[in-house]
């Protein structure tokens, strides 16, 4: 279901932390993701679930710029799920 642009097998990596930002609208999903990643250690993974389409641009841009690894990106019926490694 949905689109999957996973770069690795997401099932092989379990998230150290999960962040549910469904129901929050831009800019808060991005701000919350940035703030939580800041508190995590290098190598930790974070799963972010959002339903505001703004994250489709903002989270990949954040990973690219900050050097975080975007392990997978899924779209499930209007919900967007990202697995990020710090």
């Amino acid at each position, binding site marked *: 279901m949905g*689109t999957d642009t996973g770069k690795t097998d997401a099932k092989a990596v379990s998230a150290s932390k999960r962040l549910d930002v469904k129901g*929050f*609208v*831009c*800019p808060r999903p991005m701000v919350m993701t940035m*703030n939580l990643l800041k508190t995590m250690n290098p190598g930790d993974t974070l799963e972010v679930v959002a339903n505001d389409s*703004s994250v489709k641009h903002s989270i990949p*841009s954040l990973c690219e*710029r900050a050097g975080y690894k975007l392990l997978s990106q899924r779209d499930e019926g209007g*919900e967007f799920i990202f697995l990020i490694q710090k």
Partner: protein
Amino acid sequence: MDEFEFGVLGWWRAWYKKFFREKWPLWLSAIFMAISGIMAYGIATWSLARTVSGANPYDQSKPLGTFLGLKELGGIINNLLGKIGLPHYPFSGYIWPDGTVNFFRQYPNPLLEPTAGTMLGILFGGLVAALLAKEFALKVPLDKSEYGLAVSGGVMMGFGAVFMFGCPLVSTTNIGAMGVQSILMVTGMTIGSYFGAKIIVWLEKRRMALKLAFSDGAGYRPLMHFEKTRTIWPRLPESADGGEPASIKYQPHLALALMLAMVAVLFRFGHIGYPALALSFGAATLTGFAMQRGGICFAHAYREPFLSGFADMSRAMALLYILLILGFLPMKLLGAATPDLAYAEIFAISPAGVGVLIGAALFGVGMALNGACVSDSLWRTAEGQVKIWIGLLTLICVSSWFFPMREEPWFKTIFAPYGSKNIRDVYLPHILGSYPLAVALMIGIIVLWALLLTWFSGRTFRKYMEG
């Protein structure tokens, strides 16, 4: 043959995915928005020529904007609520450079006011784009703070719109039109967004501090994985292999049906005497479609350099502004050379003054808090974002209630004194005495603005990485 069909089908699927499912690059959305903005200006010039020649004085389309549309849609809501608020009536007309109002037209229906149609067109374009991408879903915030941000942002934007006589979409048209108002709008919205970003940072810090007392230590509760979903429709199946529910699967089919129905309605509308309004609706639909596909958001473009340290949207916006400046030029020169079409030269130019700067700053704070301006709200409303509905309704009501203030002599004297007697007093080519000089100045200002926001974004992001 099979291979050929497979090839064509394969090509179609890949193309569909690229164009309708994946997000467009921002520059591509900006180009499509510029095309629709230039189309709307061209259609407005054509409708002006038809009005002046007597061919059809009632079909007065206008360049892209939403301001008067806010008043009309607000009027409809006020009537539904029992005629609360101030009286309004839908009208159109052309205010000539010397201040005389020509071809004044009162409409029997508020939806015939040209910019009300623009708003509905953006909403429709956003809806079709969201359905084609299977991205429509009713999303209800459970966190009460989101409602607070929507209402407070909506009130500030409503007041701001009255004072600055427009919204960020009007500012794009006004930048292309080379009005002094646009420079004040961009300056004010940038300042307002800076403070809006600071308020959001403060609110998030406060939120994190409160959560730390009773949560997982990082400031956030762990994810409740789909157990307490906030997407209330469509419902996802219990297991991932349960197949795609019909409410998602058939969204593109619904989009196609809506488009066909709309084409039929617009043909009919054109046939009964409103071809320019029908075409203008089409241009607005393209704007809404391009905004949803690229995720183009004025609030994001102005706020993010100060909040998360990203200026890619700001640069896309600068591209849009520059394309509009160049794209409007042929119609403006036509207006300058043809006395009967003089209004084509000064479409979208409004009187300016300190009110525009104050209003734009207020609007900037409001759109940073709400997460969307008027046109952003329209395409995101079409995606099913309930928070955005609340912000948009608040903005529409507040601006319609206070719109008549704008017509008061004291308001004009204090807040918008320049250009009231002769609108060319706030028209850059007239002030500078040269079109090339005005174009160069406007492009220079936009490039400087984009560079400034890019610099700010670098500073913000460096602080984030180092902090």
